[in-house]
């Protein structure tokens, strides 16, 4: 099984990082400087995620087969 690739900027990656930040802020084991930095990063992440969630249009791609030959991966935006 391939290692799960969590691209940077993906919702999955952002939320995971956000959870880590919330957790370490709650634990309170980091220095104050570090806490401030984490807080800033966390707020930015939550803003980014919220922004993404506001998207209303579902994007659809279609993978198309090439005629007669091998499968060719082409991306065509629908709609």
């Amino acid at each position, binding site marked *: *099984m391939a290692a799960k690739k969590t691209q940077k900027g993906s*919702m*999955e990656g952002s939320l995971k990082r956000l959870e880590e930040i*919330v957790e370490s802020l709650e634990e309170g084991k980091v220095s104050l400087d570090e806490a401030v930095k984490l807080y800033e990063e966390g707020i930015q992440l*939550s803003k980014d995620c919220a922004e993404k*969630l506001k998207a209303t249009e*579902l994007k659809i791609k279609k993978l198309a087969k090439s005629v007669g030959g091998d*499968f060719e991966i082409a991306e065509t935006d629908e709609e």
Partner: protein
Amino acid sequence: MPLVHTKITTKKHNHCAALNNVSYIAEKVERRQRREMSSEQQVLTVTDITRQIKSSLEQRFTRVWVQGEISNFKRHTSGHLYFTLKDEGAQISAAMWRSRAGSLLFQPEDGMKVIARGGITVYPPRGSYQIDVDQLTPLGIGELQIAFERLKKKLAAEGLFDEGRKRPLPRYPSAVGIITSETGAALQDVRTVLGRRFPSVELVLLPVRVQGAGASEEIARAIQDMNRYGKVDVIIVGRGGGSLEDLWAFNEEIVARAIYASEIPIVSAVGHEIDFTIADFVADLRAPTPSAAAEMIVPDRFELLEVIRNYEYTMRQALTQRIAVHRERVASLVGSYAFNRPKDMLREFVQRLDELQRMMSGTVAHRMERTAQDAESLKKRLLALSPQGALKRGYAIVRKNGVPVTHVHQLVRNDEASVEFQDGKVITKVQ
């Protein structure tokens, strides 16, 4: 033709009798046979009679349903199937050609009770007849059911359904692959649910036929292709509801193996809630319907927004509290004797500094004053020494061409010279 039949039987009986009795009987029989042949019938060749039998049987039994038990089952390398159908009283040879056998959804085997549909054919070279089967159905349960159970058992034994190998789905996928019919209800349902719950996700469609010949190969291929494409976090494989036959592609081994081999987690979504397919058992997650698959794959964005808002609140609280604790610590330090001791010392220093400054500025002012007085008297003395002072006392300055004249020989008759007094000049001429 029944006449021919009767005659053969008669002949056979007589022949048997001849073996058991004396030769004169044989002679008598022979005479009688000769008489019969010459008087009423021509002699048939084996080929002729067989041809007549063939045409009789094949016309009479073009399509019959025969129930029996399979024995001597053989699959020829050519793909044709040969077996015997039997019951307590009789048996009949059966053959199923490759073209027919290929569409069988179960594996016939010895001892299996079946209903065979087909026509009777005669094979002249061997003088034998058989049933040419075009449809074979297991007795009791449907053949699809048998095929299903058989494959399920086989794949389970191989570990394809093991819970341990099922992969967790991503909680917040960026892209979702879907392998289904482009025109089917499944695609529409998934689009609707994703659009409502989590429209930030990208849906990647790989259209396939989901029923009919070749559908299972297409689905299996699509799963491989979607893996090659790779840019999806999870794949939905499925279709809307239909009959057991309609859903059959999802019960094929090739699809099961493709799902098993997929590196990307797969959610199966075939038919309605009650439909279970082999694909469902192999998939990482079985969804009762395509809509349900979409629901299971993505969170509701409003719920997620709520979660994010809670995170923000928690972070703010944590940090505020953290700062409050620090502020308190600082305040208590500021108020402490140890911290205030240097502060007192500093205050003393400041006071002393102020005093020194005051003293210093007093001294400077005094000295400045004296210096100013000195400057004033020096200025007076300097003024007394200047030519201006001499002029005031009654002296005058004589200049020729702007140059002061200091000796008498510098001037001759008719020279012009300027004479400067304390309040102005005059021009004179020497005589």
